[in-house]
């Protein structure tokens, strides 16, 4: 079960700087560890995380094996227009997750 949580203010004034927080369940297995039986554990990480807002990519992050499990990312942006924010995570073994949030800008 993959779970993603996104936290976007429901309303903002045009021009406000808003904080966006995201959290996703993922093992972020680095590929450098071994299991209890000494067998190598295959790398399984999220490679990219992005956010699209008002038709533009406003945030993109590339993750490395050093990022801890269940990555939490927070960032700021300027509230420009009412609409949808689309968050995407993509990674090893075909991992994909998407979440959306709505914001009203007045």
């Amino acid at each position: 079960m993959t779970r993603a949580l996104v936290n976007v203010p429901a309303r903002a004034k045009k021009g406000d700087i808003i904080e966006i927080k995201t959290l996703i369940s993922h093992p972020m297995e680095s590929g450098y560890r071994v299991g209890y039986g000494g067998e190598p554990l295959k790398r399984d990480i999220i490679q990219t995380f992005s956010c699209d807002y008002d038709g533009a990519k406003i945030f993109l992050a590339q993750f490395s094996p050093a990022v801890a499990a269940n990555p939490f990312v927070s960032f700021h942006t300027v509230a420009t227009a009412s609409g949808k924010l689309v968050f995407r995570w993509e990674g090893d073994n075909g991992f994909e997750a998407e979440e959306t949030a709505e914001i009203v800008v007045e």
Partner: protein
Amino acid sequence: MWIGGALADEIPRDQRRSGYETMRPETRAMQDSDADNPATLWVLDGEALWNKREGAAGKSCADCHAGAAPMKAVAARFPRFDAARATPVDLEQQINICRRDRQNAPPLAAESHDLLALEAFVAKQSRGDTIEPNREPGAKESIEAGRKLFNERRGQLNLSCAQCHDDNWGKSLGGANIPQGHPNGYPLYRLEWQSLGSMGRRLRNCLSGMRAELWPRDAREYVDIEMYLMSRAAGLKMESPAVRP
């Protein structure tokens, strides 16, 4: 060397503090907001499991427990002494008792994602509730057994729990702050584990640190210690699911 059974002095009631209070502000902020607390991922899965029909009885937890409201303050009084079974029972054991006896479903494995998720969801309903001293008949014996285990020296380092958590709390051990060792946040998200973990995992972690032999997973000793820890934490507020470094 003197190997004693003498009891260290217990922390006076008015000085008992949750591990939360000695954490860095960044870690406290994670616990303060559900949006930042990774344990929320387990709570949401736990809520889904709570409502899912399971086992031959075809019943969900919610079917019998009428939503989650009756779970309020429950975690603040677990482990409880189960008179019928003549043994103390902790929250995760109770969940598995309900699975086995009421849902006719196989018990969930210790430390499995689903058991931790259900436990986190149930325990969260007690957030902010005060831990009350356990006055159930039968509880006293278990609490005293736990107190004894807490004060006994063990392991290659010949340490007792009390030497760290009663006598040296507030000081550091390597990079870690020694907390008073309260059970009021479990199950909790530990940054070092990168996962949610149970009270049992925490206890095994401290036992390994003492280089002591671990009791088997389902040993009564763990629950007795938990009983004692809860009596020792009476008056503190529940924080489950908390965050710890």
